[in-house]
């Protein structure tokens, strides 16, 4: 029996190497000097240096970028949770007329690939270029349908009797939301919040198009500032790459179980 289990680890580990190798590459290259990377692209650095991090941090104005991304991500996550949560509640427990048609519409809207031209154009016309709202609105609006579905699927599992008894206790509809639904749907909300944060932090294209001036750029777009006309300093690039992904990695490590169980819930619900 033991032998059987052991052999399984071989292919699993091989794939794990495939998964981790690129990140290892990024990590070690950030500690090499620019010239060493040419001579030794994938090995361990002969001299470990921190100069790339210092330079990358300054050149990429990461202190500002971090602040911007943090604000944008927090606001987006907060709004998504609240707005999608309320909507999901309305679609699961309140007898909202037309809800089936509405759900059908939401479903279809999820499958439409949204081109970024119209969003961009609207941002220009509404004067939202270079503002946080310019990206927050598309992020929140874009995720609305999917998150509503997710939360609703979870909320449907909450027995109606609980709500009934809350109503009997004199709770209004909103109160029922806060007292019953919210606490019971916590796992689902956490999942939504985590994935929303992840997606927003890593979102690149819209942020690059809409947030143009340095004061409002996000972390993921600052990565571009290391490719100048004359060439790419691979070492700086590696360091800035690490700076870009580290917060999400930390978040991930802290919440690994929640991440995994979140996805599992998703799998189960299907």
């Amino acid at each position, binding site marked *: 029996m033991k032998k059987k289990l052991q052999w399984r680890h071989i292919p699993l580990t091989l794939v794990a190497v495939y998964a981790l190798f690129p990140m290892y590459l990024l990590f070690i290259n950030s500690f090499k000097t620019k010239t060493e990377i040419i001579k030794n692209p994938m090995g361990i650095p002969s001299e470990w240096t921190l100069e790339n991090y210092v330079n990358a941090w300054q050149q990429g104005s990461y202190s500002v970028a971090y602040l911007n991304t943090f604000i944008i991500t927090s606001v987006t996550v907060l709004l998504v949770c609240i707005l999608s949560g309320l909507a999901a509640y309305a679609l699961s427990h309140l007898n909202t007329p037309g809800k089936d048609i509405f759900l059908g519409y939401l479903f279809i809207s999820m499958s439409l690939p949204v081109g970024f031209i119209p969003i961009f154009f609207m941002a220009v016309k509404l004067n939202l*270029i*270079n*503002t*946080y709202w310019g990206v*927050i609105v598309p992020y929140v609006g874009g995720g609305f349908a999917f998150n509503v579905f997710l939360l609703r699927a979870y909320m449907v599992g909450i027995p109606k009797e609980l709500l009934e008894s809350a109503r009997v206790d004199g709770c209004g509809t909103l109160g029922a939301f806060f007292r019953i639904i919210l606490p019971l749907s916590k796992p689902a909300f956490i999942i939504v919040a985590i994935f929303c944060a992840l997606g927003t932090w890593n979102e690149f294209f819209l942020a690059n198009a809409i947030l143009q001036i340095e004061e409002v750029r996000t972390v993921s777009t600052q990565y571009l500032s290391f490719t100048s006309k*004359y060439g790419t300093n691979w070492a700086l690039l590696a360091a800035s790459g690490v700076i870009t992904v580290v917060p999400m990695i930390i978040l991930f490590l802290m919440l690994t179980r929640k991440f995994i169980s979140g996805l599992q819930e998703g799998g189960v619900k299907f």
Partner: protein
Amino acid sequence: MSLKKKLKLITFSSAIISSLLLGACSNKASSDAENVIKVPNVDIWGEESSALKVMYDLYQKDHPEIKLKQVTVQDMGTALAAGEAPDLMLQGPFEAAEAYKQKYIEPLDHYYEKYHYDEKMFGWAKNSYLFDGKYIGIPWNYEGLMLVYNKTMFEKNGWKVPTNYNEVLNLSKEMKSKETIPFAWGTSDCAGCDNWWISSMVNSVLGPEGAKQLYSGDKKWTDPELVDAVQRYSEFWNDGYVADKKSHAISTEDGTQLFITGKAAMKIDGTWSLASDLKTDFEVGYAAFPSWAPNGKPVIPLGIGGGFTINAKSKHKKEVAELLSYFFKQEVVEAMAKNGIVEPITADYSGMDFKPNVKAALSLINDAASKGESGYLSYSYASPSVVEVLESDFASVYLKKTTSEKWLEKLQKLKEKDAKDGSLFKLENY
């Protein structure tokens, strides 16, 4: 309501309110502050644009009450549309023309008169920004394409700098037998750079006058000489003489690395690259890029790299115009030339202290221009639809996705379309 409930409600609503407020506050710089002029960042083109700093400093000294704020703009078109563009902008001739059509930039005739920008300016340079009878910009440099080679390696092997296609071919064969890649090249992040080869081909095979006719006159892209030249390039590339048939999969920096590490012996580059200090352990040589005609003479294609324009919506137009007059001060002219990007004016460089390679390159260009051996860069002078394909699709020829004839036919059709739209460059002004 119970206390607990009240607290919950308060935290909830304050969360919403603060998030709304945070979303609204957005570090947007106060753009209309008094006496703040937004100008392009000195790092916009790397070392190349460092001369801008000299200009800014000179102006700042004379006008301490005005603050010059450097900004970086990702996409000028968007910025203009959103009203976020800086007061002073750097735009190429075509860009400027488009912007002017949309009334985004200010005609400068009035300021030319006031500040005499064109005192020493080359007529043809000034005319590159002539549009609809008005001067809409100030050209800030002129640039050309040249051959960059590993002088030390050449001397060691007794190689001569090639001047025409036959010599290039023979030299490349010999280099390959010695395990050296003839040409370093990388286009994965700059498909448009392939255009430089075409500029060189067009000018050397058709001659400067022919190139002129090609862009704006009667010469066709399907001219048999051109077809032959392009075909020969495709064969040249496929024989592995250009980055060992891998140029499309590596970046421009990778290409440069091939040269710096001595793996490749030559490369084609623009005069702007003189600004970047290639840290090599060998001597770098500059020469006119060899003619692509089998027995021809080299022609250096020149063009205007970019120029200054003034934002029509700027509230500081007069100040910007004055700032621009500082561009022609001796210190700035020197700084520009030091970096290998020469202002398009007649200037006396003899007294200036340049790096030997810069000196060599400058005299090269000056020589060619005076002897009539300079040509026209395709990306500056060919018509828009043609340039678009030149800058994106040359790879389909040497990657054998299409034939040279078909590709050139496509270009000819686009040129005819542009002619109908009236968007051919008016090279008669030259």
